């Protein structure tokens, strides 16, 4: 039964109108970026279609509780979800990383946040940061996340992967890293 569970979840995702099979090149409608999406995953389609065009990319293989990748561009000086701090264009990479980490830490749905790594990184040749952290989700699941951020002229490119710390995180990390390498800011 345990082995069948991911298949059942995937099947349930399939029949949900908002989720469509993923794969190929995803080009953001307004976000000015493109990325190669792994096949065998499901994409959240806010356009309710299968056109691989939205402002952001959100994909999962077996359900967002088990793993999730989100790629989008965050505009500077816009409100973040959990902190009143704002991202600014004149920030150094570690300053942007600090705001992003504080936004995650301030999310009331997660507890036991621990920063594992905070280091400089490049995304599509643009200078940025990489955060690795662990936390407990609202479902009580021990989870792990990786967040790449790269500062462009008027936005921060966000490539965010979260997964159950046991088994799923390690299994799908390579898929996420390949997706990060394929990221192109237009």
């Amino acid at each position, binding site marked *: 039964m345990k082995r069948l569970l991911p298949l059942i979840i995937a099947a349930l995702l399939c029949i949900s109108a908002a989720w469509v099979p993923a794969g190929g090149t995803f080009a953001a409608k307004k976000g000015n970026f493109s990325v190669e999406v792994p096949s065998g995953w499901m994409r959240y389609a806010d356009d309710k279609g299968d056109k691989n065009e939205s402002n952001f990319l959100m994909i999962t293989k077996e359900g967002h509780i088990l793993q999730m990748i989100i790629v989008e561009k965050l505009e500077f000086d816009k409100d973040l979800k959990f*902190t009143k701090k704002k991202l600014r264009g004149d920030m150094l990479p570690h300053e942007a990383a600090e705001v992003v980490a504080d936004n995650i830490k301030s999310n009331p*749905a997660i507890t036991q946040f621990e920063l594992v790594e905070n280091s400089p990184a490049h995304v599509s040749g643009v200078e940025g940061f990489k955060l690795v952290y662990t936390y407990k989700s609202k479902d009580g699941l021990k989870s792990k996340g990786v967040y790449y951020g790269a500062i462009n002229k008027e936005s921060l490119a966000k490539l965010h992967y979260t997964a159950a710390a046991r088994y799923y995180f390690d299994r799908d990390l390579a898929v996420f890293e390949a997706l990060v390498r394929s990221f192109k800011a237009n």
Partner: protein
Amino acid sequence: MRPIILCCIACALLFQGCATTSLPPVTAATPKGFTFEDDEKQLWKTSEEEQKKLDSSGLVLGDVELESYVNSVAARLHPPDPSFKIPFRIVVLKNYYLNAFAYPNGVIYVHTGILAQMENEAQLATLLAHEMTHCTHRHTAQEFRDLKNKATFNAAFQVFLGGFGWGLAGLLGQVGTIASVQGYSRAMENEADTEGFKLMVKAGYDPAEAVRIFEILKKDADSRKVKEPFFFGSHPKLQDRIDNYTNLRLTSGKKDGIKNAELFLAKTKKGLRTDAELNMRAGNFTEAQKELEKYVKVEPGPEAYYLLGEVSRQQGGARAIETAKGYYEKAVNAGPEYPEPYRELGLIYYKAKDKQAARKYFESYLARAPNAKDRGYIEMYLKRSSE
């Protein structure tokens, strides 16, 4: 079946469904042989399960000195008695919202956010006495019975959760959510005010502080300009407390009493600092600054000056950066081996393109924190400062 028998069964069912909500208080003077009723025993069981989740959530502050202190204040209000049925235990939660709530089994959770607003022990005693009365007067059981009788329990619980979002609610469950978010009926809250006031006065605390704490909380809740999800962050509920305690104080005729302001600040300083950090993280800079200004008075060391510098820096702007610089320099003078202020001074000079000064401070930082998690950034900036 005879109609009369059917009628009896229907009445019995109705009676069972509408259990009386009124319960006498549990006091030390309770006659021998007192037992809680079945639904209360179930509530205690549920409470213990919810507390287990909460205690292992990482939200408990876990400062032994602070917890021992708040528990000693509770013991002063309600001296431990082996015949007493409710063993009180006070736990401090890391949460910047203004709140405290009690489970029926005597476990009371106090947020760092509400502790950080208090000025003295008498104010803490007021809050604890109010919460303890909810336990001794069996308010949770009465509230649950009332909701059950109205057959609106599930709908009501969903309404509370809806306004609350996830987070703490997911951990609290039904008992904790009702205690922390909704509060109890007006009559029960008034009873908690009256009986709680008697407890704090009997313990020798200054009755004027009972009014003062709710005035402080109301002022703070108003200045935050956000709708807080918890009972003690609600404007009308705080105004009710102010009105009640003002009347109680006037009728008591008692003046003066214990305040213990210095002791309170010394014992609660870790909660104060933690709350300031939580507020800073969430971008509540005004609250964080107020708390740190209080903290620096009781612990004027490098960490306090560094955190004050951080509040200024994170607000941005040239003036704020100058203020931050002043605090970082103070921190370096107060504790030359404390690493963080060196990094921040290095970054200020790096941004100002003063490469030599930036280098000096970055090197000082790395010498004091060789295993720093952000070492990669600093080495990168250091390299660029050397080019």
